[in-house]
């Protein structure tokens, strides 16, 4: 020991071979999955958009008008986080607006007819919103909460009893009149309020916005009438559900000076497409023949590949998204809050809680086909008599059956991720709240939920993504593979995008297998990505507030 020189034995290089090998194995493992998926997606997009038939001129035109400006914009924005955030907000809010409008049209004019919506607007939605606003205005009025609960319970009863009279009034107004009164007018008030409170507009300007919105809604009607695809009702719903959030985002982005370059992003997209189109027509380049085009998303399935469309399945899937998100959010978050905040930690109930918790994790791993079987059992096949009420399920392959089955499927995932999010709220904050004399509910409402909402939303949206891509449970409950019209209501039969894609995959012709199916997959992916970007948007908003 003493004789050897210390530099050789003690400070020589320590072997790191294991670590280095491990590092590269992990790197390869992570890259393989991404590359495989990337290659598949590239393939699918290539087929769906029919890019192989496009001429060189087309590629050059769009590279010049769209790709190069976009790359330039990304290079410019790379070091400017405010621009990136602004561009992302504009982009995803636009997508969100489209999705909201779609959902709005489906809920307000397909699920509930305008007249029925009018009846329940007058008896339920309107009073609740009114009470909420009054409660914000006069914070001391403690009866407001109770009154809201009362309206929530009694309103539907009154609405149902008075349905005849109220729908007659609604019918007299006509559907545009109904939407004008129930959506545009409240939205104008909201817009005026937001523009003073959030955007710091002057009183006069926000008043102008409040008055301008209804005026615009009416004034643009002659113009809207010239576009056959957009009915007056759709215009009014879109104005509120698309125009309001997008307009707010635009105004909010315009407010901060270093976010202004963000507007270049949508401008490049729109102008780039227009310019590209112009160049292509002038030089007469061969354009691609995409399978995914306007005809594809607006028409029903067909035996000829060129005429096949996904419209009924898209509407069916949106139906499912809306219903499943409502069910899972209410039950999933409710269950997670109970398990994390209310469930006792000791005593006989604690054992039950523990069993429930463990089994929720197990349920998350149950294959989807088993949930399909469960749905078939409890929503389709069971018939039972409870006194005067007969429960006979919700029908084979109906919207409600499908939505409830898919909700069951993703509930465990939603509950687990919500539990995780709630658990991540630091205990010191709960203690602070309890120490101030807050009740459990006040603590949950004011401290736990705001802080855990980003996590809850992320988990919910990811789970929803899984739900709309599921096929097996839908097959089990007898959903149609091919349907020629969108579902008529909650008890109407439906097909969903993955079902339709699945059916097309068995068509013998290559056109179906490589073109139509690819277009379907891309549509499904676009809907899912839209949902995810909405989720990220909402999460960012709450994270900003939390920090």
């Amino acid at each position: 020991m003493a004789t050897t020189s210390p530099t050789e034995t003690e400070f020589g290089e320590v072997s790191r071979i294991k670590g280095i090998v491990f590092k590269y194995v992990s790197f390869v493992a992570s890259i393989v999955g991404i590359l495989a998926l990337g290659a598949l997606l590239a393939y699918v997009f290539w087929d769906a958009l029919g890019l192989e038939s496009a001429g060189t001129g087309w590629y050059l035109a769009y590279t010049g008008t769209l790709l190069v400006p976009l790359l330039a914009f990304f290079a410019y924005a790379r070091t400017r986080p405010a621009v990136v955030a602004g561009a992302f907000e504009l982009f995803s809010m636009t997508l969100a607006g489209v999705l909201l409008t779609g959902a709005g049209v489906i809920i307000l004019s397909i699920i509930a007819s305008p007249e029925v919506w009018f009846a329940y607007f007058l008896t339920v939605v309107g009073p609740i919103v009114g009470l909420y606003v009054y409660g914000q205005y006069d914070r001391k009025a403690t009866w407001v909460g109770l009154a809201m609960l009362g309206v929530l319970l009694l309103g539907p009863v009154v609405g149902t009893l008075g349905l005849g009279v109220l729908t007659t009034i609604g019918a007299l107004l006509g559907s545009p009149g109904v939407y004008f009164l129930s959506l545009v007018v409240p939205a104008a008030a909201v817009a005026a309020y937001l523009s003073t409170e959030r955007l710091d507009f002057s009183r006069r300007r926000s008043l102008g916005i409040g008055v301008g919105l209804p005026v615009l809604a009416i004034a643009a009607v002659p113009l809207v009438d010239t576009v056959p695809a957009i009915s007056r009702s759709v215009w009014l719903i879109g104005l509120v559900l698309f125009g309001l959030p997008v307009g707010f985002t635009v105004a909010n982005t315009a407010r901060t000076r270093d976010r202004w370059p963000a507007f270049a992003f949508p401008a490049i997209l729109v102008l780039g497409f227009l310019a590209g189109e112009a160049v292509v027509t002038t030089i007469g380049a061969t354009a691609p023949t995409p399978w995914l085009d306007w005809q594809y998303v607006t028409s029903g399935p067909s035996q000829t590949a060129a005429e096949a469309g996904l419209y009924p399945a898209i509407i069916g899937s949106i139906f499912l998204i809306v219903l499943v998100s409502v069910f899972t959010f209410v039950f999933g978050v409710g269950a997670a809050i109970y398990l994390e905040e209310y469930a006792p930690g000791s005593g006989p109930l604690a054992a039950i809680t523990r069993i429930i918790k463990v089994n929720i994790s197990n349920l998350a791993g149950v294959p989807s086909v088993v949930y399909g079987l469960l749905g078939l059992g409890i929503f389709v096949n069971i018939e039972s008599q409870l006194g005067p009420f007969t429960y006979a399920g919700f029908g084979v392959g109906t919207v409600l059956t499908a939505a409830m089955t898919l909700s069951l499927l993703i509930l465990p995932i939603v509950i687990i991720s919500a539990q995780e999010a709630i658990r991540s709220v630091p205990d010191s904050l709960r203690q602070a709240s309890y120490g101030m004399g807050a009740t459990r509910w006040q603590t949950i409402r004011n401290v736990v939920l705001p802080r855990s909402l980003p996590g809850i939303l992320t988990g919910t949206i990811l789970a929803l993504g899984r739900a709309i891509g599921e096929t097996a449970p839908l097959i089990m409950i007898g959903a149609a593979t091919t349907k020629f019209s969108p579902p008529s209501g909650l008890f109407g039969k439906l097909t969903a995008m993955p079902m339709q894609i699945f059916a097309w995959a068995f068509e013998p012709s290559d056109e179906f297998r490589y073109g139509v199916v690819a277009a379907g997959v891309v549509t499904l992916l676009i809907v899912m990505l839209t949902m995810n970007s909405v989720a990220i948007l909402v999460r960012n908003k709450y994270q900003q507030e939390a920090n």
Partner: protein
Amino acid sequence: MTSQDMASDTDVETDDDSLVTTDPGKGGLDENGERGSVGQTSAGTVIESRDLDVFYGETQALQNIDLAIPENQVTAMIGPSGCGKSTFLRCINRMNDLIDIARVEGELTFKGKNVYDTDVDPVALRRRIGMVFQHPNPFPKSIYDNVAYGLRIQDKTDNIDEVVEQSLKKAALWDEVKDRLDESALDLSGGQQQRLCIARAIAVDPEVVLMDEPASALDPIATSQIEDLIEDLATEYTVVIVTHNMQQAARISDKTAVFLTGGELVEFDDTDKIFENPDSQRVEDYITGKFG
């Protein structure tokens, strides 16, 4: 506004309207007899414990604690880690209820009412007994909303602006934050956050403020600001403070309780007496650093 001598030594309060008047001296009877001399001044007693035992599962955290905390004074609790001083503090406003395995036996009265009676709502109790924690724990909200939190949840929504300002002034924080009330409380420094937590606790005008090592996570300057503040608070509130720092207890408290390992209260008396001439040899050893 750091008038540090305003409230320090001679805070001989007159007995007012109070409370149970069981002689706090009787606390010395049971057990080893060593404990003895529960202090007595002219101030009224706000909080009094008799034979208080606390268990966490099978472990006993506090044994037969008899203690009488005088009104509008600063009572310090010192002792080595794990001696149960924080546990005692958290018994006062029933924060231990939040720990499933915690079990309390014996009696702890606040203004003569046993807080562990079945008809006492811990939420109502905590509205009268505020608490400041070891680590600053402001809510991830604006400075204003933090202070207004208690007012809102307790429906004390008259003049919120005014009360927020007054509380921040009392917590000696107003001058530093008055121009940025709607900025996030998390942007404040640690010392400012802790003063914010104190402002938040006193905004709802509690009768007692419990502080669990409020300065232990802070640097010396922030610590001295908090100490000044505590002395000021004692003019209006009864303050009970747990601390590891014996100098701090000597500087700011009127009464000191010494807890030693095993959850026993060894001695409780005027701070001067504890630090100059304690009855118990163990306390003397602890204070002089022979035993920790």
